[in-house]
């Protein structure tokens, strides 16, 4: 009973660690796809500030499987906030400001669903702006000391764009996503930005949302065929940088912990079968004297070890699939990178099953082999 409990816990440990790290990586990926890069990002050709091929940009949405595309103008702006209008204690900073075409943007990102104060932009807005919580401040962000110190809806802020044009905007909304980079951005409407930059129907970047994440390479080929040959087209995961290296580290940690868990399970089985072999030394000697083959004796102990392994896998998988996974789906963990649930994949289950059964096989084989190879007389007189 205790053996089965240990094997069950060993299995749960292996699957849980892999799944929770998988969940963290998935949450980071989802945040990047949903709020920052979507699936594909098209940037201007080298030495160009904007993407000029208007016709090609218009055609992206017509590709089968493309959910939508959203053109942004990006600019670095100096934003300042004079809370008491007395030109004292002005809070300010440099942040990225982007423009969005509302109808297109809501098909591509979920920022419109992440408004925590006020409301999202309307397509007709000209003197209104929405701010990420790390710019606004006072919303529990991690970069409070760099923020504007607690902007309220309706407050006026001054924005000086990179071309030195200065505008005053009313804060219409504050958004919060689980991505600090996005929370350090501000958004205005496309028309407003075009008037500031004095451009029309161009883009600093185009985000493209597709139906099936993972098919990006095929769509990049299609997009290039539309005429965007020289533009820099990247998949979301190529742009993740820190997040990408973090997910690789998580994967490595989960593999290391999985290997340790498997070794512990194997050693447990080894000890259990070793004790069983020692206790049955005399019986082994008698059976060998009667004429039982050594291989048959080894097989009987290996089957015993595999039995523990199989029961551990069945009970462990049941605990994961019927208790922990539903529990995490209804109560995901609030991580800084997103809402984290258990990502139990077929691959994790398959690898864990093979690992535990292999550990049982090896852990059972060695003591059984040793016991079966002992001299008949020594065994019988033990």
């Amino acid at each position: 009973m205790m053996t089965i409990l240990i094997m069950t816990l060993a299995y749960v440990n292996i699957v849980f660690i892999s799944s929770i790290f998988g969940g963290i990586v998935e949450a980071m990926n989802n945040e990047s796809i949903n709020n920052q890069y979507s699936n594909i990002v098209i940037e201007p050709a080298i030495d160009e500030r904007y993407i000029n091929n208007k016709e090609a940009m218009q055609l992206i949405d017509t590709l089968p499987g493309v959910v939508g595309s959203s053109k942004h103008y990006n600019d670095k702006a100096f934003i300042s906030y004079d809370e008491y209008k007395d030109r004292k204690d002005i809070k300010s900073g440099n942040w990225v400001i982007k423009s969005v075409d509302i109808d297109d943007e809501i098909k591509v990102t979920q920022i419109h669903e992440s408004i925590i104060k006020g409301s999202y932009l309307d397509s007709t807005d000209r003197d209104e702006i929405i701010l990420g919580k790390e710019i606004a401040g006072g919303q529990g962000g991690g970069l409070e000391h760099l923020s504007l110190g607690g902007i309220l809806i309706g407050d006026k802020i001054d924005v000086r764009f990179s071309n030195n044009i200065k505008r005053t905007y009313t804060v219409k909304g504050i958004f919060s996503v689980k991505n600090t980079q996005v929370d350090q951005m501000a958004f205005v409407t496309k028309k407003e930005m075009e008037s500031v930059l004095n451009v029309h129907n161009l883009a600093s970047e185009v985000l493209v949302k597709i139906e099936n994440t993972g098919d990006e390479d095929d769509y990049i080929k299609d997009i290039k065929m539309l005429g965007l040959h020289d533009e820099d087209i990247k998949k979301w995961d190529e742009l993740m940088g820190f997040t990408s290296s973090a997910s690789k580290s998580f994967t490595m940690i989960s593999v290391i912990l999985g290997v340790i868990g498997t070794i512990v399970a194997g050693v447990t089985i080894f000890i259990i079968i070793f004790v069983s072999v020692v206790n049955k030394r005399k019986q082994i000697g008698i059976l060998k004297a009667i004429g039982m083959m050594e291989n048959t004796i080894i097989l009987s102990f290996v089957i015993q070890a595999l039995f523990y392994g199989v029961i551990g896998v069945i009970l462990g998988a049941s605990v994961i699939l019927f208790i922990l996974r539903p529990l995490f789906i209804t109560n995901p963990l609030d991580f800084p990178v997103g809402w984290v649930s258990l990502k139990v994949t077929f691959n994790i289950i398959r690898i864990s099953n093979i690992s535990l059964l292999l550990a049982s096989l090896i852990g059972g084989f060695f003591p059984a082999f040793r016991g079966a190879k002992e001299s008949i007389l020594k065994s019988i007189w033990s």
Partner: protein
Amino acid sequence: MIIKVKNLKKTYEGKVPTHALKNINFSVNKGEFVALMGRSGSGKSTLLHQLGLLDMPTTGEIIMDGIDLVKFSEKEKSDFRLRKLGYVFQSYALLPELTALESVYLPLMLLGINKKEYIKKASDILAKVGLGDRLHHLPKEMSGGEQQRVAIARALVNNPTILFADEPTANLDTESSEIILKLFKKLNKEIGQTIIMVTHEPDDKKYVDRVIWLKDGVIED
């Protein structure tokens, strides 16, 4: 002749090597009931273990059916023990979890005989040794004499060419010992079972056809 031993030696290595058997030569004929006798440490049990393929001699030959058994691989020895040899140990060597019937049909199971047949055969042989009414008893529910008779039944169930018995009565009272030895004699006479038995009881001589005396690892003339 059913078994022939030529120049058999057994030396236990160590700081001071122990020469347990020194150049043993003898043969046993089919249907013979032979006793190996000698004082404690004379090498009689060691010789029986070599003959029964439970241990490996240092040098020499053990020939049965024209084949030198010493040259067998472990697998071949196991198979030979199962098909051709039977053992009765001093301490019965029964598996505590198995009933008398299960203990006896175990070798038949290993031979791949079907269930109906091995149960019938095991039941018959248990009846022959006088345990027809103890088929489903565990060793702990039987006396020493009864346990030894189960061991004899198990040793005989595969119709062995030779039955080896290592001091089979050493742990038994006089009455039980007599029953066991009479049973051996009966098997020897009625079915012509060849038996090689180690004993230290001089009285046991009356049951056997021939005594091979050992002293300090050699056969005494």
